[in-house]
Each structure stands twice: as structure tokens, then as C-alpha cells.
């Protein structure tokens, strides 16, 4: 009987050890400590995204230095990325090994996937209102904004699955950077609000060539009248404007509908005339715009410093830049009375850790990123907009916004007009529902435009049958058949175990196997001895 109990106990211990592996049990939920322990030292990691912009890097470094001066017991280690996708992939990898960063610039769509682990991301609602350490709390050592001072529309974007899982950090939208000189040369007048029909029509007109195969409008061999940087946004915005299906809040996929098909056919028609292409297929809209080879360049307002003949940042040879008048407009609309444009830009989330004091230190740093000094400085690096009314209404920011065109650097007019576009249209912005799988749906939305554009360029037929096949391919490739949308409260596969974890588990199995063998051998020997005796 004793032997049986021993074996059962052994098995129980083994089982508990194995179920504890791979973080499936997760961390306990974060609870706000009553006091921040300033007698201890903390080292936190901050994964940040910049737009390959040295000034942004310097602002992060200064923010960290300023924060560390206020909190000498907190050291912030910065890791820089230039790609949200890379951050996402690295976070996913690190969730499995419980080595996530403490604070991370990210997108809500990505956080929704992080949430499939247990207590991976800290819900911030209680922290927002904590009397001591909440937004503008009594024990916070800097002039933080209150919750009410965060632009409500931007804060709402960080709420999903019943909580706020992020703070907005910067906001941008998309703008259409227009070569007005060429529009007028083609005999058109820019309307107050761009429409899709206007863009298709002007773009088609721009494809006319002379006998030597030079485009009439620019006299060059290259003219790509309409280039869209983010085809994900292109499809999402068009569907939103047409009030067509995309997805429900719960994650039901609605994108494969007739409106999508009609829009893809418009894209196909324009591509067949040489009037439309994409960043992925051809290159950066800004480079072609500045070379006089593009008329409508749609890109983020956070890319404004690259746009126009006098852009402070350029990626083409100086001798290739063409002089023209740049106009910053909203993206094309279907209903000019009811414009809709996407809200985008980085948000920042806090990852949970076993040490609640470390999490509190992370939260304090996150809050510091919303101070006026950081917000205004970072927003000035591009066509970004601060996410707090406290910053937007400050004398410093108002002065900055009023000085557009004073120079081609800090006060570059295209950049300031791009930021103004979002400020004027904050009420017209939208975001798509966030759920586990929403990032994939977003990719599929853009991929359909890429596929149709490539197929037309390759002289393939794009018709109803093609679209039906495309829908099936996208559904399968991006797992949009419902198999992935588990809801944020449920567990989802975190992928294959990392090699180190596999090694550890294998090691444990071998060690326990040896222990059991040894125990069994010893028991057998004792038994034998007893029998002999």
C-alpha cells in the first residue's frame, strides 16, 4: 500500500511540474501595491517603434533620462524597432517564455492576440483611477494628464474585451498628398473633398503618352498616378465609407461580400489602365511623388516629412526632385458629407510580471510618455497629433501649429497641415473591431488588393470566379474560417514550444525517468532481500 501511495505521489509531483511548463498557467492577476517601494531598484525594458527618424530616437532617450532623474531607482532599457510587425512577432515569442518587455509600443489588434495568454497584459482601468499612482495621481512625481485629459476617442480605441489594455501614445491618420500642379495641368480642379471617382478619373487621364512613350503630364517614362501605401487601410476605409461588412465586434468575418468585390473590380480596372499601384509592388509613394511620377500619394500623416518638393527627408537623388505644389487632403470618400478616415498610431501597453512593484514602475513610465513634454516633442517629428487635450491646448503646441511654412524643418508646412487634418477630423475617424484574429483580417483586406493588382499587371483575368477563389484563398491563408476567433477570454495556441523549453521538458522527462527506474530497482532489490530473508 505504501508503495502505491509513493508511486501516486510521485506521479502527482510529475504532473504538477509538467502542467507548470510553457506558461499555460500564467501569472497571477496584477494587483496595485498600496505603496511604491522606492527603496528597491527596478530595471524595466521598453520596446519602442520609431519611423527610422533620429529625432524620435533622441526623444525616447531624453524621455527615459528625464524619467530616471525623477525615479533614480528605475532604470529603463530601450529597444528600438521600426516595424510594428516585428514587435508583434517578438512579443508572441517572448510570451511563451515569460520574457515579454515591461512596456511596449503596439497596436490594439496585436494586444488582442497577446491577451490569449493568461494575465499577460495588465488591464489599466484600476490604475487609471488609483488615487496615488493613477493618471495625475497624488504620488506621481510629474505633471501627468488626468484620464479626462486624454482625447476620449483615442482612449476608447484602447478599450476591448471589457478593459482598457493600452494608453494611446500618438495618433495619425492617412492623408492624400496631391501634386496639384499636375492635376491642374491635366485640366482638373481639386474639389474640397476628394472622391474615389475623381482620383480614378484624373489618374486615368495622367496615363496618356506621346509617340515616344513619354507621359504627357510629366514628360517622363514613368508615371504611377495613384499609389497607396497601406492597402490594408485602403480596403478597410472604402468598406467603412460604403457601410459594408468587414467584421463584427465579436470577430465574425464579413469582408467577403459583394461590396468588396465591386471595390476590387474598380482597383483592377484602374490598374489595367496603368493608373494605380501599391507600395508593396512598386515602392514608397513619397519617392514617386517627389520625382514627379505620382499625382496622388496616400500615406500616413506620420510620413508627411517625406512628402513634397521641399520635404526635409528625401530618399531620391536631389537632381530627380521635381518642383510642384503639394496639397494635403483627406483620403478619397464615397460620401463627401460624411467623411470617414482611419485612426492609427502607436499605443502603449504594460506587460504583467510576477513582481507587482515592477509593474507599477512600468506603469509610471508609461504614464510619463503622456506628459506634455514627450507628447509635443514627439508629435513635432512627423504629422502626429498629441493624444491629450492637455498637450493639444497648450500654448507651446498652439504656437507650433500656427507657424506652418516658416521653414522646411520643424515648421514644414506639409507636416503641420497633415497634423491639422487629423485634429480637424478627429470626429470622423474610426477604428476596426479588435479581437483575436483582427490583425489577420486586416492583413487579408490589404492582401486582396495586392493580389488583384499583381494579377492585372501579369495579364491574368480578374472576374467573378477569380474573386471567389481569392476569397477562399484568403480565408484559408489567414485562418478566417472561424477556427481562430476564440474570443479574448479563451486560450489559443501560442505556437510551437521554443527549443529551450523543449530541451527543459526533455531533460525533466529523462531525470524523472531515471528517478523512477532507480526507485523501482531499489524497491525490487528490497523486495528480493525481504523474500530471501
Amino acid at each position, binding site marked *: 500500500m505504501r508503495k502505491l501511495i509513493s508511486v501516486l505521489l510521485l506521479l502527482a509531483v510529475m504532473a504538477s511540474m509538467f502542467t507548470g511548463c510553457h506558461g499555460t498557467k500564467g501569472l497571477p492577476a496584477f494587483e496595485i501595491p498600496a505603496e511604491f517601494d522606492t527603496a528597491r531598484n527596478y530595471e524595466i525594458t521598453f520596446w519602442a517603434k*520609431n519611423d*527610422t*527618424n*533620429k529625432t*524620435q*530616437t533622441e526623444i525616447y532617450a531624453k524621455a527615459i533620462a528625464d524619467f530616471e532623474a525623477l525615479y533614480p531607482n528605475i532604470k529603463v532599457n530601450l*529597444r*528600438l524597432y*521600426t516595424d510594428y*510587425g516585428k514587435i*508583434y*512577432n517578438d512579443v508572441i515569442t517572448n510570451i511563451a517564455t515569460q520574457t515579454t518587455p515591461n512596456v511596449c509600443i503596439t497596436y490594439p489588434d496585436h494586444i488582442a492576440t497577446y491577451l490569449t495568454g493568461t494575465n499577460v497584459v495588465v488591464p489599466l482601468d484600476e490604475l487609471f483611477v488609483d488615487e496615488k499612482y493613477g493618471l495625475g495621481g497624488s504620488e506621481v512625481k510629474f505633471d501627468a494628464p488626468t484620464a479626462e485629459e486624454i482625447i476620449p476617442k483615442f482612449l476608447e480605441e484602447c478599450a476591448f474585451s471589457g478593459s482598457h489594455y493600452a494608453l494611446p501614445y500618438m495618433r495619425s491618420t492617412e492623408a492624400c498628398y496631391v501634386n496639384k500642379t499636375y492635376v491642374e495641368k491635366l485640366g482638373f480642379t481639386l474639389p474640397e473633398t476628394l472622391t474615389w471617382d475623381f482620383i480614378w478619373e484624373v489618374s486615368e487621364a495622367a496615363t496618356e503618352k506621346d509617340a515616344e512613350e513619354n507621359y504627357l503630364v510629366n514628360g517622363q517614362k514613368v508615371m504611377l498616378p495613384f499609389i497607396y501605401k497601406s492597402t490594408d487601410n485602403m480596403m478597410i476605409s472604402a468598406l467603412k465609407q460604403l457601410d459594408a461588412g468587414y467584421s463584427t465586434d465579436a470577430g465574425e468575418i464579413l469582408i467577403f461580400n459583394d461590396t468588396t468585390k465591386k471595390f476590387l473590380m474598380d482597383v483592377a480596372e484602374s490598374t489595367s489602365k496603368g493608373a494605380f499601384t501599391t507600395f508593396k*509592388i*512598386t*515602392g*514608397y509613394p513619397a*519617392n514617386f511623388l517627389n520625382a514627379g511620377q505620382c499625382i496622388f500619394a496616400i500615406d500616413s500623416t506620420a510620413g508627411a516629412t517625406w512628402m513634397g518638393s521641399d520635404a526635409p527627408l528625401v*530618399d*531620391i*537623388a536631389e537632381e*530627380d526632385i521635381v518642383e510642384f505644389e503639394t496639397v494635403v487632403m483627406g483620403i478619397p470618400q464615397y460620401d463627401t458629407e460624411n467623411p470617414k478616415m482611419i485612426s492609427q498610431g502607436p499605443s502603449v501597453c504594460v506587460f504583467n510580471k510576477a513582481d507587482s512593484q515592477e509593474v507599477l514602475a512600468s506603469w509610471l513610465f508609461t504614464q510619463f510618455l503622456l506628459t506634455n513634454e514627450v507628447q509635443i516633442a514627439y508629435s513635432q517629428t512627423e504629422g502626429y497629433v498629441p493624444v491629450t487635450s492637455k498637450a493639444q491646448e497648450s500654448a507651446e503646441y498652439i504656437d507650433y501649429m500656427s507657424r506652418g511654412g516658416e521653414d522646411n524643418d520643424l515648421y514644414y508646412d506639409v507636416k503641420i497641415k497633415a497634423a491639422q487634418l487629423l485634429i480637424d477630423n478627429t470626429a470622423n475617424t474610426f477604428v476596426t473591431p479588435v479581437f483575436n484574429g483582427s*490583425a*489577420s483580417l486586416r*492583413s487579408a483586406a490589404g492582401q486582396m488588393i495586392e493580389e488583384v493588382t*499583381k494579377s492585372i*499587371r*501579369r*495579364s491574368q483575368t480578374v472576374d467573378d470566379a477569380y474573386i471567389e477563389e481569392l476569397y477562399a484563398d484568403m480565408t484559408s*491563408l*489567414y*485562418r478566417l474560417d472561424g477556427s481562430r476567433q476564440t474570443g479574448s477570454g479563451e486560450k489559443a495556441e501560442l505556437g510551437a514550444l521554443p527549443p529551450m523549453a523543449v530541451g527543459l521538458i526533455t531533460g525533466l522527462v529523462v531525470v524523472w525517468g531515471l528517478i523512477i527506474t532507480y526507485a523501482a530497482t531499489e524497491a525490487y532489490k528490497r523486495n528480493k532481500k525481504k523474500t530471501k530473508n
Partner: protein
Amino acid sequence: MKKLLILLLTLCLTLGMFACGEADVDPNAKSEGTMTYAEFAAAALDTEVTIEAFVQAKQGWWTDDQGISKATFYTQDGEGAYFIYDMPCSEEDYNKMSVGTKIRVKGFKAAWEGEVEIIDATYEILEETWVAEPTDVTALLGTDTLINHQNKFVSFKGMTVEAANESGAAFLYKWDGSGQEGDDLYFNVSLNGTTYSFTVESYLCGSDTEVYSAVKNLKVGDKIDMEGFLYWYNGVNPHITSVTAAK
């Protein structure tokens, strides 16, 4: 005895040549249905192309959000080079493809910011191996004919390191200095009064490579020889794989 020795030596040499696998390899030999480099160069963008070439460098293997593994390769035959971008490729096959491995690639010819590449490609690993010698293109810098060597393994001789920014740094992390250790390195080199921007592409040569360290140790005014691949981004933007003091 002497005869026996000679015979043995001859045998060893012959076997050695076969072991190299390159002795009889004609880098321009093509299977039926495969384009010559001239045919590839003449093909219009967005048309389907099938080429055979030898891997000269691998620029990273990665898995995208949908779990599809992809890799990018510099490949070359005896006439010209082909940049194979983001080709779906298993890790096992990626490891099989070493420098010199011959592959047959079918995909679409494309151009991104001036860089001619083959995209949406599939591949087949072939038996032969061949490694290209670098083509010295120093004298072609600044000429219109340089582009004819796009994506080839090339060398540059006797160039002078110039300041990469106003503060006199010899190299920058990322093009504007906004990066950090592990990111691409950008540095300027001049020849006959003209300055060019060269890059150590971190996916091709990471921070643990000799060239990455060598560039970090450069000083303005150093005379250097370089080898690398003739990448294009709105003009020539070589991806350097080796830096040594000029001979």
C-alpha cells in the same frame, strides 16, 4: 615506385577536382525551358520567368504572420545575377542551400525602387555547385553601365572612407543614425571626388560577422577594398560583405 607515386598523386588530384564539384560546371548551362540571363534581362516586368542560378548569399530566413517561411537569396550564373526576394522556403531546404548551390527558380520579374527581383517564386534544388568570383566594378561607379551588374557579387578597390554625418562619424546605425547595435550600418566611401553610400545589411551580415565589426572600426580617411552585392535602391546601394585595408 616513382610511377606508383605519380599515379597516386594524379588520382588524388582527379578525385579532389570531382569533390569540388565545380571543375566541369558550366555556370551558364541551362535546362530546357530555362532562360539565359540575356533573356531574363530582356523580359518585361511582371512576366513569368524561369531561371537557373547558383546561390551566392542568403539574406535571412523568417516566418511570416501566417506561418509561411520565406528567404531571400542573391544568385548568379556566368552572365548575370538574380535577386530572389521572399521566396517561400522551408528551414530544411534553406539549410541545404549553401553558397554555390544551384537552384531552378520560377517566379515573376518585378522591380521595387529600381531593384530588379524575382518574386512569388518557387524553387527546385539542383546538383551542381559554382561560386562566382567578384567582378571589380570600381571603375564603373558613377557610370550608366554599372546597373548591368545589378545584384552581382562585386568588388571595389582603393576607396576612401568619408564622414557619414556632420559630426564626422565613420558609420551610422541606419541611414540617419536612428538605429542601434544590430541594425544596418551605413557608411560613405569616395573615389575620385565622388561619394557613395554603402551598407552592411544586417539580415545579410549581422552584428556577429567580421564585416559588421570591420565597418564599426573604420576611420574617416581609411583606404579600403570591399566586396559585396550590387543592390539597388533608387540608385546603387551595395550591400557589403567584406572590408579590408586597401592593397
